[in-house]
């Protein structure tokens, strides 16, 4: 990789660059990469640079009232100039992720642009905030970096989209990281809606730290990209923290999703409830590996994990690997896995009312995802998100 050697001088954070070059390229024999071929990440075919212009970050303007109350929604480059003390306090302070080491190092070395969101102590943002990150360059590696901070007792909903409306040319590698801080008693509903075009190979890391009694409600929705390998880590650092972790993946063509999650309970009476679902058409496939870790001091914690996969064709495939690491003895913990085709009895029931088979399948898949989306408990979001699902369902189906 000559290009990588030549880039050395350009790295924004030389120590991370050193780490990146020192780490070996992932191997198929690493547990983490057994089900996703690292050779499919075309790093050698794209331009590596810390250029902030390779990304376009956008958001719906927030009201003057919210601005006056101190809410900030802007891009990272602007935030660095305007709010250096916040950046200083939080950027890259969410702790070292436990996965995707090589790509986390690369990200750290080169990222410069992304979304910045700050909700100050005690402020409730009623309406959902909306933001997006778009790819503005062809044949490039891009490094979106999200930084979201919700102050003590504050509340907000953020719908954060990944897309490339004009399309892109050539391969793209998106090596992204999102850091989220929930201060004591705060509440954040965060929807990460991944709609990258099919040229994109994505590496995605999310690190979330929850303080006392904070509540994180997360929906990660994977619809786009050709390959998406993600590591979603949620750390419950103080008593009473709660995380509801939802995932929804809809594969078609030869799409490949590989998701790893960590529910990291570090304090007493913390709760995490994870539900990840995928529906897979054509030759798409999904891998899910989820670890529940409950530290010795995290007594009276509850942790749930469920992964359900609906295989919509002979060629579709799903692997599911739940893992537990429980050091406390007074906890409640369950996990469950299901992989299978559309239920024959459900299809028969719908067809017995005149609904054609393909339409029955669409209803069942819609219902399968509706059960995830309704857990957001926000009607005004549900419809829009279900429309995203239907859109994916209806396109790329040559039979219809």
């Amino acid at each position, binding site marked *: 990789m000559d290009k990588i050697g030549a880039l050395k001088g350009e790295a924004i954070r030389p120590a991370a660059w050193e780490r990146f070059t020192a780490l070996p390229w992932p191997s198929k024999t690493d547990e983490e990469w057994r089900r996703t071929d690292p050779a499919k990440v075309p790093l050698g075919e794209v331009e590596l640079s810390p250029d902030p212009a390779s990304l376009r970050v956008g958001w719906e303007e927030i009201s003057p009232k919210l601005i006056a109350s101190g809410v900030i929604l802007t891009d990272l480059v602007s935030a660095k100039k305007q709010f250096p003390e916040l950046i200083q306090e939080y950027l890259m302070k969410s702790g070292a992720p436990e996965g995707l080491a090589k790509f986390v190092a690369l990200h750290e070395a080169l990222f410069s642009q992304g979304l910045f969101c700050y909700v100050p102590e005690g402020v409730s943002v009623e309406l959902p905030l909306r933001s997006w990150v778009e790819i503005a360059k062809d044949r490039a590696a891009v490094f979106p970096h999200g930084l979201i901070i919700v102050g003590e007792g504050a509340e907000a909903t953020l719908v954060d989209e990944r897309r490339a409306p004009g399309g892109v040319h050539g391969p793209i590698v998106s090596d992204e990281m999102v850091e989220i801080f929930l201060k004591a008693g705060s509440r954040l509903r965060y929807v990460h809606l991944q709609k990258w075009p099919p040229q994109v190979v994505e590496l995605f890391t999310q690190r979330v730290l929850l303080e006392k009694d904070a509540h994180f409600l997360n929906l990660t929705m994977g619809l786009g990209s050709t390959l998406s390998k993600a590591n979603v880590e949620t750390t419950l650092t103080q008593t009473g923290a709660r995380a509801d972790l939802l995932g929804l993946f809809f594969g078609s063509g030869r799409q490949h999703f590989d998701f790893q999650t960590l529910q990291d309970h570090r304090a007493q009476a913390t709760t995490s409830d994870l539900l990840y679902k995928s529906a897979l058409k054509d030759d798409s496939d999904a891998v899910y590996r989820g670890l529940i870790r409950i530290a010795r001091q995290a007594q009276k914690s509850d942790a749930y994990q469920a992964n359900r996969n609906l295989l919509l064709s002979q060629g579709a495939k799903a692997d599911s690997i739940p893992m537990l690491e429980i050091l406390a003895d007074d906890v409640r913990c369950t996990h469950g896995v299901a992989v299978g085709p559309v239920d024959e009895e459900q299809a028969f029931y719908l*067809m017995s009312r005149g609904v*054609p088979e393909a339409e029955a399948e669409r209803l069942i898949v819609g219902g399968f995802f509706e059960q995830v989306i309704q857990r957001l408990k926000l009607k005004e979001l549900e419809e829009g998100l279900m429309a995203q699902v239907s859109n994916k369902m209806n396109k790329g189906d040559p039979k219809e």
Partner: protein
Amino acid sequence: MTTPLLEIKNLHVTIEGKEILKGINLALEKGQVHALMGPNGSGKSTLSNVLMGHPKYQVTGGEVLYQGRDLASLKTDVRARAGLFLAFQYPTAIPGVSVVNFLRTAMKSRFGEAFQPKEFRKEFKAAMAQLGIEESFATRYVNDGFSGGEKKRHEVLQMALLKPELAVLDETDSGLDIDALRVVAEGINRLRGPQLGILLITHYQRLLSYVEPDVVHVMMDGQIIQSGGKELAHELEAKGYAPYETEKAPAP
């Protein structure tokens, strides 16, 4: 002679290699109500599922004609659009799919061009009201967590909206309290008419006193062993199936 609405001729059906229906014969005319009675496990639900084209049963002999048409090659949804309807004994839950969304899709499928989306809400609400179903029911998931009685009302609701020409009601009366039974029976009677044939599967005389059958059939071990008028149902109620057991016993 006119073509019967439904004609079952010497129907043999197996499931997982086991023969359940062993030569069923039955003819039902338009506008008629036939009751089908028989002990548990005699094959009544098997027959209704086969009429609807459930993929897990194999028809190994005989035929089923609906409006003179052989059903064998028709898929379930095609049968339904042709006017066949089955109110299930055990309706399947479909979590995530709301009743209103399901019924809109079903009616669109059943009536095609003739479906009027603008009229749907009104029609749907009126049909619910007639069956004493609360409006909040519309947003619940299909059969998901429904009580026994709610499931049965929901089946009759669908029948009212989909306007079938042949309805098979598989124990639509079981699990209903007295009031619900009356509401459901009234619902069935409202739909009864010269354009609808009904095959009413039941264990109880109770329903038949509301919905009077033209013919009563008795099914035992995969065969219809006797047919008669409505008095046959009274007889069964009084004596049970024991007399038929002995009648059948000497068979080689």
